[in-house]
């Protein structure tokens, strides 16, 4: 199971910025257990967004957001409402957010930080990867993880070593920052690259005491 923790509401609102039309998408798998996804989290965050004056174009709950096929099929029904939205706020782990970005050309914002991969890794059948850095940056990179897709886990743009779009470490692998650049250009968010990203807080990778005290965490790690 993947363990996630809600980002503070202020951080979510800051990341949404001036966007007012939002589509809300929640995972009903691991995130439901962690209470970062599922019905309950969906209605809590919905209320918070409405309080902040946001206009919700629609909401959806998907069993496993880490399964791209499932996500694509489920979202097909919601396309109208998604089209009307400026962005999608995703209540899931980092893999789920990446899967959503792969299937819809919209700005995605993670509502949670992934802090531990636990044992079993959701469904996770594809190539999206999450290292549970505990401080999800996917809103800033257009839904492509800079920690796992860049060989140096850089946060402030490409190292300059990419050759023909391939990483300096492995000419078979795409440069993560090239992908991020192309994605940001596509969704009209190149200005994200200008933001100075301060150094990672590695202590966020440690599951918090609260999380460690849940029985789910016990089941996952001690059995």
């Amino acid at each position: 199971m993947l363990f996630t923790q809600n980002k503070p509401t202020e951080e979510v609102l800051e990341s949404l910025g001036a966007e007012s039309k939002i589509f809300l998408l929640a995972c009903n798998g691991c995130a439901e257990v962690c209470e970062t996804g599922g019905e309950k989290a969906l209605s809590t965050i919905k209320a918070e967004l409405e309080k902040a004056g946001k206009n919700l174009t629609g909401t959806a709950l998907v069993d496993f957001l880490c399964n791209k096929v499932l996500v694509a099929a489920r979202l097909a029904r919601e396309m109208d409402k998604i089209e009307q939205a400026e962005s999608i706020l995703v209540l899931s782990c980092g893999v789920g957010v990446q899967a959503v970005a792969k299937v819809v050309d919209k700005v995605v914002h993670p509502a949670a930080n992934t802090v531990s991969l636990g044992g079993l890794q959701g469904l996770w059948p594809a190539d999206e990867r999450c290292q549970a850095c505990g401080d999800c940056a996917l809103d800033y990179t257009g839904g492509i993880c800079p920690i796992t897709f860049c060989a140096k886990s850089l946060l402030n743009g490409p190292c300059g070593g990419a050759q023909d779009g391939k990483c300096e470490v492995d000419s078979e692998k795409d440069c993560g920052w090239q992908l991020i650049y192309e994605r940001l250009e596509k969704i009209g968010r190149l200005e994200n690259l200008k933001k100075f990203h301060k150094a990672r807080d590695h202590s966020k990778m440690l599951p918090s005491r609260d999380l460690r005290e849940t029985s789910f965490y016990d089941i996952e790690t001690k059995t």
Partner: protein
Amino acid sequence: MKLTERFKEGKFVITCEVGPPKGIEVEKIIDELEPLRSKIDAFNVTDLQSSVLRLGSLATCRLLKEKDFEPICQLTCRDRNRLSLQSDILSAAVLGIENLLCLTGDHPQLGDHPEAMPVFDLDSVQLLSAAKGLMNGKDMAGNDLEGQPPQFALGATVNPGAEPLEPQIIKMEKKIDAGAEFFQTQAVYEVDKFANFCEKVEHLKVPVMAGIVFLKSPGMARFMNANVAGVYVPDSIIDELTSAGKEKRVEKSLEISARLIRELKDLCQGIHIMALGWERHVAAVLEMAGL
């Protein structure tokens, strides 16, 4: 002396790269630098270049300082976390080093210890910002330093041949905001492309030093084209080298470099020479270029 002082004087600044030895025999590099004393403003000492284990940059810089050469200490994010990097920055100040070049660094996979842990706790922009913070008397955690803070001229790198160029320029702007006061570039062989880059960054008002790498053979040129990001040696230059034949090759190569320097000179504020073992030819090239 800080390199920034030289730019302020309006001087066309010339730096040269020094690769510390794989071992502790330092006499040879010092001997090779002696003839360059009056020609070169400062010497960049690499930090385990290409991720190959060598003598350290900090110790070599201090050695140069003792021999009255001006060092630029290169600092990469590959091997040290933020505690270690900040501590080395303080150490550099105590050792009399006044110029720091902050880089991301190559991945260990490219070097002779591919099994090593790639650290990259910071990236180049964050490293510049950390150095600037120390210069303002604060560490990255926000704690005050005791006494006088260290002072440096902070440099950074940019790859003017990268494609796409836009993310490179955006990152360059971030480096300037973080504290970079001068830039050194990857090797340049295409003057037009470099001119286009210069135009795009002119508004940033920061000195740029064009990178010069001596082409030792046509094979080396082709190797760079295939393997070095953002570097392209045009066919015309490769043909020139090939047709010079083996005996005249060195002469031809130096002539090509001198010509490039002459053509680049009016576009930028300095040049950075990476001689890769041909340090003995640097003086001749500069002379041919009229410097």
